């Protein structure tokens, strides 16, 4: 996959979303939304319920097809690519709810995400067994290292369904990193996470961004957004009504009206 990952011009944003719109029946869920996400930075999408944040994320990841607009990733138009092909070029998402493989262990959840697995091709299952088993041993070590980094190494043989809400978030983030992403799209990463784990998760995200990975996250927890996001977009009724630093957005009347004061 590395060969097929598109190179990026030094100053170009990794992700560039231009004028995307989407309607469900008569409801205009997303209207002419544009934004970009540079590598190594965390971009936040905030807004009241029904603002179109998750729909925007769904369009960027390929789960929802936009009526208009384009999405460029590393200089290539990915608007018409299905979800799995976007993931293969490095656009990895997490889910607001139920993103785990319940009856796979935590370690297996991570192994599924590893790209370029030789043993996933049926011909190789029967022909080059020794080679893919060797590759699998290396992947197991990588996965264990990630689990250790996220503090859930002792849970590697636990079914994902048996994890707590916070542990699931940590596992999902570790799994996303196992997929070797260039862009992480996180849908409410703090949902269901206990206050004890929130700080830990924020630190992990900053660490991931510092390694050069672009992050776009949808979140309701404004203090968390202020702490980790360099750039924030405010959505209301499907439109972008403000963007910039969170501290500056708190002063904008339109943002206050639509969101911050409820």
């Amino acid at each position, binding site marked *: *996959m590395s*060969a*097929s990952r598109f190179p990026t011009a030094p100053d170009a944003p990794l992700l560039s979303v231009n004028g995307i719109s989407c309607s469900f029946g008569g409801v205009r869920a997303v209207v002419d939304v544009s934004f970009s996400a540079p590598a190594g930075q965390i971009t936040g999408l905030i807004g009241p319920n029904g603002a179109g944040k998750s729909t925007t994320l769904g369009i960027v*990841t390929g*789960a929802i097809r936009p009526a208009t607009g384009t999405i460029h990733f590393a200089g290539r138009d990915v608007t018409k690519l*299905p*979800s*799995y*092909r976007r*993931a*293969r070029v490095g656009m*990895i*998402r997490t*889910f607001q709810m*139920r*993103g*785990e*493989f*319940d*009856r*796979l*262990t935590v*370690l*297996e959840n991570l*192994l*599924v*995400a590893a*790209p*370029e*697995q*030789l*043993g*996933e*091709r*049926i011909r*190789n*299952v*029967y*022909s*080059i*067994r*020794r*080679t*893919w088993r*060797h590759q*699998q*041993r*290396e992947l*197991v*070590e990588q996965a264990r290292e990630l689990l250790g980094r996220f503090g859930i190494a002792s849970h*590697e*043989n636990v*079914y994902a369904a048996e994890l707590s809400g916070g542990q699931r978030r940590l596992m999902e983030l570790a*799994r996303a990193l196992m*997929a070797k992403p260039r862009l992480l799209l996180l849908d409410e990463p703090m949902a269901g996470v206990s206050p004890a784990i929130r700080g830990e998760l924020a630190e992990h995200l900053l660490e991931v961004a510092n390694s050069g990975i672009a992050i776009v996250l949808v979140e309701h927890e404004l203090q968390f957004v202020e702490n980790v996001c360099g750039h924030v977009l405010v959505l209301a009724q499907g439109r972008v009504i403000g963007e910039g630093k969170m501290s500056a957005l708190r002063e904008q009347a339109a943002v206050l009206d639509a969101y911050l004061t409820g």
Partner: protein
Amino acid sequence: MSAAWQFYIATLIVFGFVYIIAAAGLNLQFGLTGVYNFAFIIFEAAGAYCTAVLSLGSPRAFGGFQSYILGLHLPFPLPLLASAMVAGALGVGLGALTVRRLRADYLAIVMLVISLIATGLVTDYQGVFNGAAGLSLIPQPFASLTSSSIVYDWLFVLVAGVICALVLLAARLMIESPLGRSLRAVRENENAAAALGKNVTALRLLVFGVGGAMAGISGSLLASFTQAWSPSSWFYTETFVLFTALIVGGAGSNLGPVVGAVLVPVVLAEGSRYLPQFGPPTLVPSLEWIAIGVILLAFLWFWPRGIVPEPKRTFPAEPVPRPLVPQRTRGVLVRDLEGERGPGR
């Protein structure tokens, strides 16, 4: 042991192998990938029909008392291999029409309807399938090797056993590979699997093809052994027998299809023969279906993982050995296999 008893036991064993192979195919689709293929039996029927028309000679040779196509009179194992390919191709074809657009529950409904349509079509299409009468006098594949019917039966048991073992080995290698893990991921959460780069449609088509091919092998063996093929033998209810076998045995595990296929279609169904006759003449045969239904419900309710549940797959802590030098495998360098190709990644 009398010849009659030997024939009876050999028949039971062959039927056991036939059901085990079919259950192994369904296990790849339903147990591993979560595909509710309620038309599974038609792939078995397609394999059986393919073997029949490839093994039989020209329709005119028997005075034209039955109508069918081809009549190539091919020797074993060509009809068996062709049956696997035809049923596998049918699986991919039907899968391509359905899995791309339909969610699991709607797919189940559509496949059930396809099964009903197929049975109706075959029964009414006299020229190709010989209608409800089906086909008979299918040649025995190893008849030239022995003149003794008892020896022939045990020879068939041996060959069926070897084929069954090979199918189970192929299924096991697939289940325990990274491909099997990706299939289980699709079963658990198809959206999350797609978001990690898995081509869910291609993976489902793959199991439609492989599971269909196994069903074809199963049907081929049955047609060769019984020397007959009839549409009434492949009604949609047979699919539910296999689903019950899989749920009782343990869907997703390697041994589950074996245990379920032996317990449900062989022991339970055959056991009902030994019930004393009571009530109306149709009561005892009906009890067999009632028992299968009750057992299915009981297992779903109290024992949903089955007798041999899918095992938790863990990995031993071990040091990583020295990297392998890229090696040539069938003319393709290992590093050439990497990339964005294939149903997984």
